[in-house]
């Protein structure tokens, strides 16, 4: 009896220890998150001022200046990448959801999954040899193309998954009214799934907004305004990198400020996506 009691106590102890270690693992993983958010907020605030948003970078050694061109550059890059990446991604997702139960469908789905796991820096090399070598200049267009390639598989798979969630009865009702399949898909299925897809797209946009590696040798960087899509273009992530590894105190300050802007952007997109999803679930 006492033996079984001891065994019971041991089993109970093991179970407690196991549960505690799982809780501990979760806490350990969250420490860096709060560490980063704290650092970015505390140091970033010190670097933020009006100049940061309105001035061009100063030459090496001079303090002051800002990152106006990089902020605009990031918006330009992400905007063009969205234009190039979202419509093809949505259509490819429609293909997978509507006609994807074939062998071709599996190949497309598989390629999308694999493509989303490819390191972003190799996408940079790909676009470099495809666009930059051909046009002989780093350009905003090349950078946006690299970001679009990174977005494409995410948008595709999100669209497919959300279209699959739309009840089949809606489609049947539309087809029953004599609507052709393509109109039923576009006007009924896609429209019903649209808010969810929009959330998925927001997350994809948030992800590419912070991408640095593929921009290093596609969009490159620029100390001045870039007037056309065919010139090297500054962007916040590349600017953070350049400033962070530099030896200048004032550049470090600006790197933190830029990080604050970038992280705020990403966080806002993520939280907004979260809120939108929750509101939909509540309805």
């Amino acid at each position, binding site marked *: 009896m006492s033996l079984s009691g001891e065994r019971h106590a041991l089993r*109970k102890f093991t*179970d407690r220890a196991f*549960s505690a*270690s*799982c*809780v501990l*693992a*979760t806490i*350990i*993983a*969250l420490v*860096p*998150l709060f*560490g*980063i958010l704290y*650092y*970015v907020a505390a140091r970033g605030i010190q670097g933020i001022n009006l100049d940061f948003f309105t001035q061009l970078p100063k030459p090496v050694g001079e303090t002051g200046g800002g990152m106006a061109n990089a902020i605009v550059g990031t918006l330009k890059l992400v905007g063009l990448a969205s234009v190039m990446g979202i419509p093809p991604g949505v*259509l*490819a997702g*429609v*293909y997978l959801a509507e*006609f*994807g139960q074939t062998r*071709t469908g599996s*190949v497309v789905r*598989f*390629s*999308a*999954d694999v*493509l989303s*796991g*490819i*390191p972003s*820096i*190799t996408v*940079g*090399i*790909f676009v*470099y*040899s*495809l666009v930059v070598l051909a046009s002989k200049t780093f350009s905003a267009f090349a950078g946006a193309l690299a970001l679009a390639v990174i977005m*494409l598989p995410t948008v595709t798979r999100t669209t497919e998954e959300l279209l699959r969630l739309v009840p089949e009865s809606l489609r049947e009702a539309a087809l029953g009214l*004599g609507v*052709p*399949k*393509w*109109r039923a898909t576009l006007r009924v299925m896609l429209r019903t799934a649209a808010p969810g897809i929009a959330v998925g797209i927001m997350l994809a946009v*948030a992800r590419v*907004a*912070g*991408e*640095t*590696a593929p921009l*290093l040798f596609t969009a490159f960087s620029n100390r001045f305004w870039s007037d056309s899509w065919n010139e090297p273009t500054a962007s916040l*992530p590349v600017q953070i990198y350049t400033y*962070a590894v530099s030896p200048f105190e004032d550049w470090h300050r600006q790197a933190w400020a830029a*990080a604050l802007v970038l992280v705020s952007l*990403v*966080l806002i997109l*993520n939280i907004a996506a979260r809120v939108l999803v929750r509101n939909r679930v509540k309805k």
Partner: protein
Amino acid sequence: MASQPQSLVRSRPKWLKPFGSEVNWGDAIFRALTLLFGLCVVAILGGMALQMLKASRLSLQAFGLGFITSNAWNPIQDQFGALPFIFGTVVSSLLALSLAVPISLGIAVFLTELCPAWLKNPVAFLIELLAAVPSVVYGLWGIFALAPWMREVVEPALASTLGFLPLFQGPSQGFGMLTGAVILAIMITPTISAVCREVLNAVPGALREGSYALGATRWETLRTVILPFARSGLVGASILGLGRALGETMAITMVIGNRPEISSSLFAPSYTMASVIANEFTEATGDLYLSALSEIGFLLFVVTLILNIIARALVWRVARLPEGGRL
């Protein structure tokens, strides 16, 4: 069509035809159009492989297999060997994996088995946020917060306790293999734990309940029932994380020290494949130099491609197990 009463046909819009009466060109075009964009995804993947192979042709011809076994990296004399970078990438990624897998598994178990319902979504969201923070911000934090902490606290502590191992000898520098691995581990944890969660959720509830009904504790249920069922998926999740770690660029470039040396000490600076591309690609003068960097990228591409294929296959296996898994 002919069988329809004339009046009814006239009252319909033109595009509306009786169901199944003839080929609907709208549908055919729509299908072809979406297929085109679907194939776009395949074409990009294939085009990437071809383009990168083409870009690394010079280097492949010049060095052959010697490229991955030589550690001579001397751009001035056009000598290129990728061994130090392969070493740095493999060691930092495996080290990161060994740190991240237990933590991720703990998170996944916590979220699927232990966590009260009200806490589940907030915690899962915070873990996801960890994946949303841009790589370059990790790097910035790594330079100014993590590396000094590693230099002043973690590395001296390791040296004084485990210093008899060659792994933990040498000066504490902060910027080196260990710091790189830690930052990689933080970055791949959300990926691994998300896939682990998915896999654990795919384990049929009846198995779990059966085990509890027999009087097993949570730990016993996990060890004897859930883990065996989910094993291949959990391995797949780890491989997916490994793929992420291998290709991660900015954060590790900023903290690993960027010195192409193979050292037995984890405190020493190292260099990874992705880092050397990031640092030297735009400065590469000469076609052979550029080609050698492209070949490193190509190797990275091929390895992550293979790892992703294996990982997807393993994860799919758990999710696809027949309903016969239920009693």
